């Protein structure tokens, strides 16, 4: 069969979908007539989700004021938009969990995704973005297309990995050579089919080279640079994995001085440990509830 990124994504997005509560929440968030109380009431309908959200907002990673003990209070303190990004995060955790470990080393995959999310969050902070969790989620999702390729095309994956072993090309170039598209194309197609917000779709699709976009948006630029940093710090993957090229236009678009990299890396290293702990314990809570 001749695969395209869209066909491949459709195979997966039809069997594995986002929970309806995420979309209902998004509708509420975008409606100016809706109060915090309404949002809290919707989330509280799902007891399992409420427990996970409360654990998250009280974790060291998010660093919100402590003692957020009810969903209503969480909505007030954190804001509806950020909370809906956290809900998306729990869904991503569940989704990744469905993939057996034989297919991919899921722990390493997770760690790289978390490192990219944390890096994106720290960069967004330096860039004075108000909602930094949006960037965290985008970083978490950026390589999701790789999972789809791993799962659906095992033979081609072997071929891609042997190309890598000869050290001829970065991963996405090897994928293009074998498949005609890469994991960023699959990721974009998948998020699009799921109906996720445009900024996420674009950032995931362009994460290797944002300058292919007509106009580079901040989300794409930050996720791209975050991926480069996560790889350079060897977070997640073994050290022999190569650092992808940095898109010069994307770096310029963010407009931060080179000197932020050193303090940013220190911050990323600290937050990374907290985020890994948070997400791995959230996985445990989610699977024990299921």
């Amino acid at each position, binding site marked *: 069969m001749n695969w395209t990124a869209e066909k491949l994504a459709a195979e997966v997005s039809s069997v594995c979908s986002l929970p309806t509560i995420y979309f209902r929440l998004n509708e509420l968030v975008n409606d100016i007539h809706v109060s915090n109380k309404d949002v809290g009431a919707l989330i509280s309908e799902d007891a399992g989700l409420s427990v996970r959200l409360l654990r998250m907002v009280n974790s060291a990673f998010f660093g919100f004021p402590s003692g957020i003990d009810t969903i209503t209070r969480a909505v007030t303190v954190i804001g509806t938009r950020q909370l809906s990004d956290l809900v998306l995060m729990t869904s991503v955790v569940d989704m990744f969990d469905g993939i057996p470990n034989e297919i991919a080393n899921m722990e390493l995959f997770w760690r790289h995704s978390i490192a990219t999310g944390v890096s994106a969050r720290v960069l967004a902070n*330096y860039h*004075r973005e108000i909602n930094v969790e949006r960037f965290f989620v985008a970083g978490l999702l950026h390589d999701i297309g790789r999972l789809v390729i791993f799962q659906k095309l095992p033979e081609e994956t072997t071929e891609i990995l042997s190309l890598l072993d000869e050290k001829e090309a*970065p991963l996405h170039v090897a994928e293009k050579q074998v498949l005609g598209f890469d994991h960023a194309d699959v990721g974009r197609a998948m998020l699009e089919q799921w109906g996720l917000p445009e900024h996420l779709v674009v950032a995931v699709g362009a994460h290797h080279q944002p300058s292919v976009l007509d106009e580079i948006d901040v989300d794409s630029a930050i996720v791209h*640079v975050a991926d*480069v*940093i996560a*790889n*350079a*710090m*060897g977070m997640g993957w073994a*050290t*022999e*994995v*190569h*650092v*992808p*090229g*940095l898109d*010069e236009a994307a*770096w310029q678009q963010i407009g931060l*001085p*080179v*000197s*932020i*990299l*050193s*303090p940013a*890396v220190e911050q990323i290293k600290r937050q990374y440990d907290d985020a890994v702990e948070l997400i791995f314990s959230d996985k445990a809570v989610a699977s024990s509830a299921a």
Partner: protein
Amino acid sequence: MTTVNLENLKSGMILASDAVLLNGRILLRSGAELSDKSIKMFASWGLTEANIEGISETEIKSDAMRHLDNELLAKAEVAVREMFKFTNIEFPPITELYRICIKEHTEKLAGVSDNELDS
């Protein structure tokens, strides 16, 4: 004049230009002499660099790498160069990441934790 990262600023250095935050606020004027107190203030305001009078870039770099063992440094450099082979090492942010990466690798090889270095 050389741009020096916060971690390499020392008291006694002279500012070659105003120390300005990203939002335009000026913390210290050009010509001022840095003290431990002003460096602490820079850190707490989130300033990441300052332009310093009469110091060369190589001086800063060699100073920052001084505590690292040469043999380990060479070993780390081989590994890191391989990691960075698909990147444009001349592009300033990559040059900086490359430097940070070599420093981290060398410290890892030496088995020294960050905490021990700080003290």
